[in-house]
């Protein structure tokens, strides 16, 4: 036996692996601990949602959108119903628009909390994980009292909202917003400010701006690479043009910036919700839409700023009650392309951290 022969170690991580989010699998080629090649394998959660849409009516498809990015389900509802409304030319009531913004931004906060928690967990910060999930619980309670479900909220309908928030919703929302600075301080103290965590994340997994643009990266991952681009500002959909908020941008291009930019976004979301609470008018929450939704023949592409990247819906209608084609452009599916490119050459534990900062939700990646 010769000892001067070296061999690559091919390691199969996932779909059952403690650090893989959902059912992600990657085949990692290792040289010692250094990663030479990564092949992501997805599809373990593929449910064929695009195919399902073709045999469901427009309204019946709304609950399925919950199951895309299940950590921010109001956002998926929102993107879908807005696309259908754009196709049909429906104007929805003011109050419903404000409620949608409130729910969407709450979903953004909840999603970012999960992202911070899971990134902390992937670098073994167990307690930080608990704190972020504790605070997310309050948002879920708010969903629950309004729409009746905690995860797959299904709170929007074509033409408005499914339900008016109950009276106890508003104080709960106010107290949550009041507590956010304290929460963020706590996350910072236990996770971002920790030198060990900074060592794990800073200058790891550099994704330069040019690469990010070329790879069609969107969302916070793009903004952490120094591109100031947010659909809410660039193409204000819904009523985002009425709010005063900033688009946080970071220039580090590394794992740390991809993580901490979510903290900045939570701050901006709180700002938006406060303005929405101030301005929300009284009125109906449902526009007059026909009972049977039958959009005219045509096609429309609409995108919204999902917490994890841009979510786009491309709907082709043939004039019947069922869509001819629903194309879902999931943000994290496209963002995932950076992993094999960026993570090459790093240690195996850095790959885990880089993957965590992508904030991939396999419900959205696999559709």
């Amino acid at each position, binding site marked *: 036996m010769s000892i001067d022969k070296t061999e690559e170690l091919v390691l199969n991580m996932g779909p059952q692996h403690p650090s893989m989010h959902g059912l992600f699998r990657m085949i990692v080629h290792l040289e010692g601990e250094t990663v030479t090649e990564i092949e992501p394998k997805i599809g373990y959660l593929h449910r064929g949602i695009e195919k399902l849409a073709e045999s*469901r009516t427009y*309204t*019946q*498809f*709304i*609950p*399925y959108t*919950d199951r895309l990015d299940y950590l921010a389900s109001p956002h998926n509802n929102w993107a879908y119903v807005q696309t259908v409304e754009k196709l049909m030319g429906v104007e929805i009531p003011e109050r419903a628009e404000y409620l949608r913004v409130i729910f969407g931004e709450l979903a953004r906060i909840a999603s970012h909390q999960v992202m911070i928690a899971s990134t902390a967990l992937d670098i073994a910060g167990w*307690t930080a994980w608990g*704190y972020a999930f*504790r605070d997310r619980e309050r948002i879920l309670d708010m969903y*629950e*009292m*309004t*729409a*009746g*479900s905690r995860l*797959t909220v*299904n709170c929007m309908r074509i033409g408005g909202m*499914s*339900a008016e928030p*109950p009276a106890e919703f508003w104080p709960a929302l106010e107290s949550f917003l009041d507590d956010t600075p304290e929460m963020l301080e*706590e996350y910072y*103290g*236990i*996770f971002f*400010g*920790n*030198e*060990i*965590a*900074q060592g794990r994340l800073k200058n790891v997994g550099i994704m330069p701006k040019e690469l990010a643009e070329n790879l069609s990266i969107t969302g916070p991952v793009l903004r952490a690479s120094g591109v100031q681009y947010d659909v809410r500002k660039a193409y204000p959909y819904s009523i985002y043009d009425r709010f005063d908020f900033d688009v946080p941008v970071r220039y580090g291009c590394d794992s740390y910036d991809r993580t901490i930019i979510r903290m900045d976004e939570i701050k901006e979301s709180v700002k938006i919700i406060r303005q929405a609470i101030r301005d929300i008018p009284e009125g109906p929450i449902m526009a007059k839409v026909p009972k049977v939704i039958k959009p005219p023949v045509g096609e429309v592409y609409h995108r919204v700023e999902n917490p994890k990247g841009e979510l786009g819906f491309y709907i082709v209608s043939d004039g019947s009650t069922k869509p001819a084609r629903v194309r879902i452009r999931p943000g994290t599916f496209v963002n995932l392309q950076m992993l094999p490119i960026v993570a090459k050459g790093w240690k195996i534990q850095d790959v885990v951290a880089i993957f965590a900062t992508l904030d991939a939700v396999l419900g959205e990646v696999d559709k």
Partner: protein
Amino acid sequence: MFGKGLFQGLGITFKRMVGPNITEFYPEQKPVLPSRVRSSMGLQREKCICCNMCAMACPNGVIKLTGEKDEESKKRVLKSYHMDLGRCLFCGLCTEACPTKALTVTQEYENAVFEADDMKWDMIARAERKGKEG
């Protein structure tokens, strides 16, 4: 200074260690869910007019119901009402479609069963059983 963050973290965890905890003692203390929670469905048989709106609203074909015409009152009466919970998304579209609010969401959340066949709910039998218990 290097190490400041470490001590800050230790301080936070120590504060939480001596502070109160927020564990819910679930089987001993059952949470009271808000009245909109869609954790199971309940049927009031006498309100149902067998219009089939719920079955048509359902994205997954969970609901199967049959009705027959009552000779005296000339109204359709519910004969059978089955839900296949194994395919239910708990989206609540059926309850929204119901014109008489015969089908409503209920807050029973302990729906776990041992056999797959137990997921096929006979809603009329459930309603009667609930009537007896309550």
